[in-house]
């Protein structure tokens, strides 16, 4: 096995109940890389993200997935998170009655516990929240509300990247984080993601549009179609898709 792999997915098959959605996914991501996954609606992009993150709705039928050599599929969703996996949800969930502050404090301290670190003091925590908010220019007012409750579509996406900034994942999967963002917000969110980039971590962006990839430059672009990665190439593939659409893919498969 390539020691340099951060994420290694081999022959991953998964679905809901008996309905197979992912039909043998192979995907390798190295530290420092940005991968884009594109593909028509319903092809299984969100499912792949969910299966990697451990969404209990899905059943894994076969294959493997490791993060930094650790068997992801054997871990609970929370431990996958502690191991450094972050998923920016296509549809972030509203949690009325749970404040953003309590939510983030619980998340941060759970991870610290996993890493055998002391919980952050109140002032350290608030200081960190302030710093991270600045990265995506998240309004202070949002931070004092319930998680995502009553947030606009764009605010929810910005809030996802804020959480990513706080949790500093090794691998972030951004599922259509660009959808619902206005042009300025897109620029801010993309620059936030770029600021968080190091040569140790990696990002998978799931998107339908080249627009986002203008800001977050991918090293590799994959096309997912009917539960398989049917095409992998450099950044030029996204441009080609923008021009030609998916028909040629559908014809070939």
């Amino acid at each position, binding site marked *: 096995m390539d020691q340099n792999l951060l994420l290694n997915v081999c022959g991953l098959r998964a679905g809901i109940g008996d309905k197979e959605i992912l039909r043998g996914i192979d995907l390798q991501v190295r530290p420092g890389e940005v991968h884009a996954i594109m593909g028509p609606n319903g092809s299984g992009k969100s499912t792949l993200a969910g299966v990697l*993150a*451990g*969404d*209990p*709705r899905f059943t894994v039928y076969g294959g493997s997935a490791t993060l930094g050599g650790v068997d992801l599929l054997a871990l*609970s*969703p*929370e431990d*996958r*998170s*502690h191991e450094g996996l*972050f*998923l920016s*949800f296509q549809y*972030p*969930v*509203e*949690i*009325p*009655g*749970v404040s953003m502050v*309590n*939510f983030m404090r*619980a*998340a*941060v301290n*759970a*991870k610290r516990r*996993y890493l055998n670190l002391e919980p952050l003091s109140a002032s350290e925590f608030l200081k960190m929240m302030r710093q991270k908010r600045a990265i995506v220019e998240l309004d202070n007012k949002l931070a004092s509300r*319930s*998680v995502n409750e009553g947030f606009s579509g764009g605010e929810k996406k910005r809030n996802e990247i804020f*959480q990513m900034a706080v*949790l500093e994942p090794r691998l972030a999967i951004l599922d259509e984080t660009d959808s619902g963002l206005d042009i300025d917000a897109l620029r801010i969110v993309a620059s936030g993601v770029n600021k968080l980039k190091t040569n140790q971590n990696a990002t998978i962006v799931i998107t339908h549009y080249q627009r986002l990839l203008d800001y977050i430059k991918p090293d590799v672009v994959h096309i997912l179609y009917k539960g398989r990665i049917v095409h992998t190439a450099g950044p030029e593939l996204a441009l080609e898709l923008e021009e030609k659409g998916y028909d040629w893919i559908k014809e070939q498969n």
Partner: protein
Amino acid sequence: MDALAQYLNLYREHSDVLMANAPEALNRPRPRAYERLMSARLPRKGDEGYPALSVEEMFAPDYGVNLRRVPFGVEASEPFRCGVPNVSTLMAFVVNDSFRPTATLERNLPDGVEVMSLARAAEIYPDVVAKHYDALAGAVKLIPTDPHSTADAVMQPSAVSVLNTLLCQDGVFVRVKAGVRCDKPLQIVNISNASAPLLAVRRMLVIVEDGASCSILTCDHAASHDVDYLNCQVTEAFLGRGASLDIYDLEESSARTARHAQLYARQDEGSEFTVNGTTLVGGRTRNSYYVELCGEHARAKLAGMAIGGDEQAVENATCVIHRAPKTESDQLFKNILDDKAEGAFYGSIIVDEKADFTKAYQINRNIVASPSARMHTRPQLEIYCDEVKCSHGATVGQIDENAMFYMRQRGIPERQARMMLMQAFMADVIDTVSIPALKSRLAQLVELRLSGTRELCAACER
């Protein structure tokens, strides 16, 4: 012998002892109560308004009654400090059915605020007590009189109120004189303490005169968790014009405690009443609220929550009657039921034909966290005039799995995520408490209870 008959026998055989140990104002209504009970029975599970609990079974065991008023068990009040940090309270205990003021109570009572034993009040203010005692619990008549009204069952004073009147010897008397605002909350700590099964029959009479205001915290505890207790309690509250009264009631007793509590309130013009009833630990609990809005612009907020586990049963029944125009009521009841717990909500709103421009809302939401827990919910609306804004909603569901996954993805362990969601679920009920320190104490107790703790008192003593 049927459950009620044993109490009627007790009365027949010992009414001399009973009456000799109680004041005249409490004795006077007994013969009528006895008459009424002769042709009554206690409600059974399945009776209209009683979806989950059989009151008859609750009262069936052979409980002792302390008719001679032997002062046993009073030392039990010591361990129960029930302090709320940062709230200076005026505290009194009720041990079984005996009123026990703290040493500082009398000295600290503000001018115009009286808190004392009901029996004593009946000696000092016989007219006041005679005028109010049993005036609500004993005399509720259904208006409008629709022969098909299903709300009859909850609206008619249940036989248990009448039984309470038959046997009651003491309780708590609270009066706040006109215009007096009692800023310190009054706290009444009810403690069950006996070494053999005991029925405590107690009464609370609360009179908040015109323009006066006060908050009352009550909490129920069991000194022993190995003895069967039955608490039969009736509260009558009178709110004068522009008066304001908050009652925050917390049950933290034991699995072997049964509680049958009824609250009757009558509100004059412009008065504001809030009641929040929380059941955290108990065996079988039946709480019913009967609120009449008799003057324009009177407003009532009824809130309640229960966190039930094991074989606990908790039933809340409400009946809010709008008798005057421009009155408002708002009901919010929530339950989280785990294990084999059973919960019920029976909520009725009645809008009289004269009560135009009424607003009446009701919400009942429930989380059933285990497959063997059960919840019954039933709204009951009777509206006899046209200009009314009225809504109700009830849900029974599970924890939101999407929210669970979202939280776990962020690293929050499953158990903690579940607790946070349950706590959040109760947030709006907790928010009905207007005293900040009490609100945070309640939030803390709820959190402890959700984490599985059944001995919540220990937390208060710390």
